[in-house]
Structure formats: C-alpha cells, structure tokens
C-alpha cells in the first residue's frame, strides 16, 4: 500500500480534511521508521493508548489485550519529555500559489497538523501559534491525544492575511513553551533575516531548539516564463518590472544564494533549517522535523 507521507501532497489534500489527511501522513511516516523512536524508560504509568504500527512491542499491555482483545500500549509520565510549539505563518504571502496545486498556506497547515500529531505520538506536548503581522491564535502545549483536535481546529481558523512578523511570534511561542523546548517555525520567510536570526539566537540562549521549515512554491524557486510585467510583493510596496525570460537564470542564482544565507545564518544561531517545496511529499519536511526532535532530546 502506498504510504501517504510519500504521495503527492495535492492528491493527499484532495482526499480529506486536515485532520484525516494528517493522520494518514503520520501513520505512513511512522510505518516507515525502522524502529520505534521512543526510548521511554521505566517511569510512572500515565495512560493507555491505542497501538500504532511502529510502537515497540514491549510497551504493549498484554493483560488488556487478553481481557479486551485489543492492542494498547502503556504510556508513562516521564515519556512526555519534550514541549514543542508549531509556529505557523499565515501572512498574505502564504496564500500564494504558483505552479503547485496547493498554496503555501494549505500546504503549511497540513504540515503543521502532521508535525503536531507526530510529536503527540511521541508523547510530546505540542502547542500552536499562528501569526501574520500579529499573533492570530495561540494554543498552549499539551501532550494528550485529544489536544491534537484542538490544534487542528485552531489551524482551520480563517484569520490571517497581513504582513509577516516572525520574531514576535517566536517570542510568544517561547513564552508558551516555558521551560526548554522545541519550536518549529513553518513560514515562507519573507521577512528580514537579521530579525529572525536575532530571535533565533534569543531562543537558543533560553535553551530552546528552533527548527525552521522554509515553505516555497516551485515558482518562487524557478521563475516561470511569461511576458514582461510588474512583479509586486503583496505584503509591501516592493515593485519591479522584469521580463522573466531575461532574468530567470539570475533569479535562480539569487534564490539559491538566499537559501544558503538562511541556512548559514540560522545555523549560526543554533537553529535547524530546511526548505520545503509545496509540491514535495509531506514525508520530507516531516523527517526534517523528526530528526531535529531526536537531536533535541
């Protein structure tokens, strides 16, 4: 059976709403792991939850299996050892779509849902901050499975559409996480690198780990051909008249250089960075986030 995390994101998105598709994605992702990522040692029992492929058999509660004829695994309080917050950019630029079938925000919302679910499956507490030029909504981190539905509901809000104010959102997320935790920023990063670098350095100083998933439409990376036109930034007064055919190659070089600068700048601030194309399967950014989580434990 085809794994949903490796399928065309537009196709996955067309199959159902965010909650459903995020589950498929995470299920597919986890079934692809070689072994359960959990390393939870002995600790105080917290709750049972349904068994999912990838869970280690040693955590299966065989007594419940014998009584109720269903597979459940035991969860322990100590395993909820990471507090994370997904910080989602819902600015106007995220509503843009070029050559891909999903716009950046549609893609990012599904990715945020999947990341949250992945964390919760790993018994981490996850919260959500949505922002544009201000904080649009904030959900504090929790580890219970039911909390995820709250996150999905928050993702479904239609608010947003202003300019991008990333550093403020990151500060709010750090405040919500409280103690040392992990912050996943999902944004098209159409903001000033220096401000973000400063915010990232602040997070690092506070002991937080920052993962930046840079969402890009393929048409933002490779300029598509077309007649001469004025290209206008929807969030600012920036305008430039160009003939795509003439500037295409130079533009590609500039974008690659900018991506390199993001990577260098954020690495210097102790943050992880990955570009996410909106036509790429969700498994790719999910893996990046998961790898960062593993490093942060």
């Amino acid at each position, binding site marked *: 059976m085809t794994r949903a995390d490796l399928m065309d994101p537009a196709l996955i998105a067309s199959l159902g709403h965010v909650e459903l598709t995020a589950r498929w994605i995470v299920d597919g992702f986890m079934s692809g792991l070689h072994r359960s990522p959990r390393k939870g040692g002995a600790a105080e029992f917290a709750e049972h939850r349904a068994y999912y492929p990838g869970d280690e058999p040693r955590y299966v509660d065989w007594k419940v299996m014998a009584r109720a004829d269903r597979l459940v695994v035991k969860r322990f309080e100590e395993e909820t050892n990471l507090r994370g917050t997904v910080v989602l950019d819902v600015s106007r630029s995220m509503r843009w*779509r070029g050559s891909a079938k999903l716009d950046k925000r549609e893609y990012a919302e599904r990715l945020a849902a999947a990341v949250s679910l992945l964390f919760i499956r790993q018994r981490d507490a996850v919260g959500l901050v949505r922002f544009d030029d201000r904080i649009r909504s904030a959900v504090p981190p929790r580890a219970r499975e039911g909390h995820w539905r709250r996150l999905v509901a928050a993702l479904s809000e239609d608010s947003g559409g202003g300019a991008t104010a990333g550093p403020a959102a990151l500060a709010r997320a750090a405040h919500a996480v409280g103690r040392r935790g992990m912050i996943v920023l999902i944004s098209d990063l159409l903001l000033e690198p220096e401000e973000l670098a400063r915010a990232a350095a602040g997070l690092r100083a506070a002991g937080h780990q920052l993962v930046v998933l840079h969402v890009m439409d393929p048409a933002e990376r490779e300029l598509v051909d077309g007649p001469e036109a004025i290209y206008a930034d*929807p969030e600012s007064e920036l305008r430039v008249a160009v003939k795509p055919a003439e*500037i295409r190659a130079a533009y590609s070089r500039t974008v690659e250089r900018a991506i390199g600068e993001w990577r260098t700048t954020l690495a210097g601030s102790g943050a992880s960075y990955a570009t996410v194309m909106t036509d790429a399967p969700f498994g790719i950014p999910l893996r990046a986030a998961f790898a960062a989580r593993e490093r942060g434990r």
Partner: protein
Amino acid sequence: MSFLAPFALLLAAAAAVPLFLHLRRTRVTRRVEFPAARYLVRATREHERSLRARSSLLALLRVAIVLALAFAAARPLAPLGGGHGAAAVAVVLDDGPSGAAVREGRTVFDAHREAARSLLDRLGSDDRAWLVLASGPTIGGDVVRLRSALDTITVSLRPSDPSAALRRGARLASGASPLAPAVLVATDAQRSSWHTGEPVPREVAVAAFVPEGSPVPNAAVVAAEPVPLAWPGRGTVRTTVRAPRAGDSVAAIVRIDDRVVARATLGVGEGATGTVEIPVPSAPAGWSAGRVELPRDELAVDDSRWFAVFTGAAPGVEARAGDFAGSAVEALIGSGTLTAGSGTAIAYADLLELPVARRPALVTAPADPTRIGGANRGLARAGIPWRFGAERRGAARARGEGIGDADVLLRYALTPEMGARADTLATVGAEPWIVAGEGYVLVGSPLDTSATTFPITPAFVPWLARVVIGRVAVGAPRLLATRPGERVAAPVGVDAVAFADRVVAVRDSISVPDRPGVYFLTQGGRRVGALVANVDPEESDLSRLDDAALAERLGSHARIVHVPGQAADAALRGASRRPLGNALAALALLLVAAEAVAGGNAFTRRAAAPTT
C-alpha cells in the same frame, strides 16, 4: 558581391524594429503579485551589468537575424574558393555574314571561334554546354563533341539574329538548374544585327567577346534589280553600292548568264551609298540569271549581288479602273515598262460583264457600292474564284510587300469560292485585301482615295508594275526576292524549282538554298519565274556598337572582353560567384537558436501564470 534580388535588401530596414524596441523605455502595465519580489529586486541589482549586456546581446542578435534574412532574400552571389563550380554554359556564336570579313589574314569568325574554344577548354564533365548559332541551329552534347563541332562551323549567309540566339542560350543555361548558368557571346557587335529584346535574367552570367580593332573597310552591292522588270530585248540594272567613304568611286561589272554584258563606275555620295542604272544593251530572250560584281575586298560575300530578268515584249495593258490606275498605267507606258494594248485589263469588277472578261486582269471592287452584285457576277464570268462580301468601313493600315504606308477606308470582305487557291498579297487586319491567282489580282477596294490612300502613295506605281508584269500579264515573270536559307510560299502555278544540280517538285513552300543565287521556277518544265536569294544588305554595314551600347542589349550585368583568352574567365565568373542565400538563411537559423538560448526561451517549459 552582387544580388539577384536587390530589392529584398529593403527588408534590412526592418532591423530598426528590434533596435527601437531595445532602446525605447518600456511602459509595462501588466501587474503580477509575487511574494518573492524581494529576490527579483535583488537579482536585478546583483546582475545588473550582466543583464544589461545580455539585453544588448539579444538586441544585437535580433538585428543580425533580420539582416541575415534580408540578405538571404536578396540572393547574394560572392566569389568563394578557386576554380569554378559546375556550370551550364551556352556559347552563342555570331556566325552571320559579317563574320567573313578578313582582318590581318584571318576572319572575324576565327576570333569568335578562338574565344569559344578557350571556354570549352575550361569546361569539365560536371558542366553542361551548348553551341547556339545566330543563324539558328543549336548544338548540344558533351564538351568533346562541341569542340569538334566548333571546328566545322563556318560563316552562314542565312539571316542571323544574335539577339534571339542570346535569349535562346540564356533559356538553355538557366533551365539546367542547379548548375550556375552562363552565356558567352562571341560577336563582332555589328550594329545592324543587335536589337534590344526581352532582358536576360540576372542570375545568368553573360559575357561577350568582341574582337579588338575597328571594322574593315567594306564596299558592297546592296541592291540590283532590272528596270523594267521585263526587258523588251534590252534594259538597265538599277544598282546601289555602299563604299567605305562618301566620295569614293567603285567599278562594277554586270554579268548575265556568266557573260559580262556591261561595266560602270559608280560614284558614292552622302551616306556612302550610290545608285545608278547600268544599261545592258542586249540580253537573251526568256529568263536569265544576272549578277552585279565589285572588285573583291576584305568582306567578299557582299561583293556581288544576284538578279533575275525576263527578256521579251512588254505586256499591253488597258486600264478601266478609275483615274489613279489610268494615270499610273500611262506613266508605265511612258517608261517602256508597259505598252498600250488589250492583252491585260485593269478594271472594276463590275466591268467584267462587258467584253473585257476572260482576259488576264487586275480587278478592283466597283466604285459604286450598288454595283457589288454586278461585280460578283463579273467575277463569276471571268472564272475568278472570289466574291465581294460585306462592306467594311473605317480606317485601317494595310500590310503587304511593296504596299508602303497605305490606309484602307472602305473595302469589301474577300470571300473565297470552293477550291480557290491564291496568294494573299496584302491584308487589312486579319482579312485578305489583295489576293492573286492564276491570271488575276483582286483588290478588295476601288483604287481611289475615297476607299484607300494606296493610289497616292509612292509605292503605288512600282507595285502596279510589279503585279501586272509579275502576276497578271501573259507569260510575265514571277519574281521572288528572298535570302539564303529562308522558306517561302510557292507562287500559284509553279510546280518545280530548278537548283544548280537538281529540279525539286514544289508543293506549298520552297526551301531556299544556303548559297546566294538565282533559282528558276518552272511550270510543266517551262521557266515561269525566278527565286533570287541574296545576302541581307544590312550585313554590309560593318559598323559596331560600342561596349556600352552592346551591354545595353546584352543586359546591364554583362561583361565585355576583347581578348579571346579572357572570355572564359568572364563567362565563368557566375560559377565562381556562388550563391550565399542558403548559407545566410542557415546563419539566420543559428542566430535564432542563439537568441533563444541567450533569451532563455530555449527548452523552457511555459508554466501556468502565477495566481494570487
């Protein structure tokens, strides 16, 4: 470099369009929302120099594309490489009589032949060639065959037309595509031979070889005819001679049947020509061949001229066809050409009902239109197989030998009866106006000024004498003046022609031999006329066109040389100039590809336009 279609160079002006588009300040109104505009701004700033250079390169490429296409359309020819490419060459040889002129021990035609040979020697198996003679024939085949044919070709005394031969050769050469077409004309540039005609296509390289030096001085007999046409025992020969200069005098002798019968010295006046009537005291009865001869000079073919004469009693004529015909007959009687008598009639057709019928007659339409019915009855009674038909009014020019500039105002359509066989002597439009048969000449109009201007033209009296003696009178001669090699219609009543060595039966036409001379026409073995073939008198005028005038007749792109060895190079220059049109079109394609690459259009998938 030259161009086959130079007007296409005007297309080069279109090169201004990309230049203008490059230089003008663009006013773009289309707006596209693009979140990553900051990267576009940065790319523009970072690559400003290279973008500007690329934009200039693109403009340059586009200008070059337009120029390459314009030049390709102009079909340029340029000298490339050594030797010559495969060529289709027509060698036009002017073999007219003037080529027989001797200068410094060799004929002018020998120089023509040398130039032609120098070209044939340069041709190889990839080339095609033809020998096109101004006198008519065309010889094709491989180069070896043409070289040996060239050795056998001599000057022809037939009428020659080098202008027509040039166009024939050009058609042959240009029809052998893709070989480079070329024509070499070897000619003495005789002024009277060359005329302006249909232009030779520019893609045909035309070269002409004209022997160096001025024409040789030439004396010639340009006309010789018996006066009167039939001699009553004796007569004169009206002789016109051309001499090299005005004021010269020329000694001439007259031979009849190879016997010298008269001598004269002719003075030459203005125009270097002089005419005199040389008396001939006696001539044998019947038909004789005569010749006027001058001392031999550098061009021998025109030093003698043939004539034929019939010696016997002048025919008696009675004229009843109006005042003009009556006055003309009186004048001819006074000159001894005719006598007053009743043997031959000149009469209105309606008078044929009267006792003039059944005599040889020159018959005209009646002066009174109401007499047309009687005129047709008269034609029937006289056994003339023609009838007057519908009346035709309105001025029209008559055409016919010896008619001059006669206009016809009123005529009747001449309608043949079943089995009518006649010669048409003159026409008006497409209809016969004067016809001649056995013992009659029929004119479709009355001979007065209300119907035609013919009786008041200078040509009328000589014409009347010629037709009365040559066509109507009993036993009168039939004289046909022609040129060697021509084909002429056989006169009515002639059944054979006697050449020097044989007698040939005649049906509808006679092929005149290539040699000048007198050939007798016979009927039932009896001489009834003569065919007199002489070289065209215009051939005696050896004056030449200068190079500019000759080039005008050959085509403005023609090259003229005067040394035989240069003829081949001049003719084959077209083959060494290879067409660049295809190469330029290929270059334009390459430039288009380069433009596509430089412009970033090549192999670029056009994606959907960004939406917001």
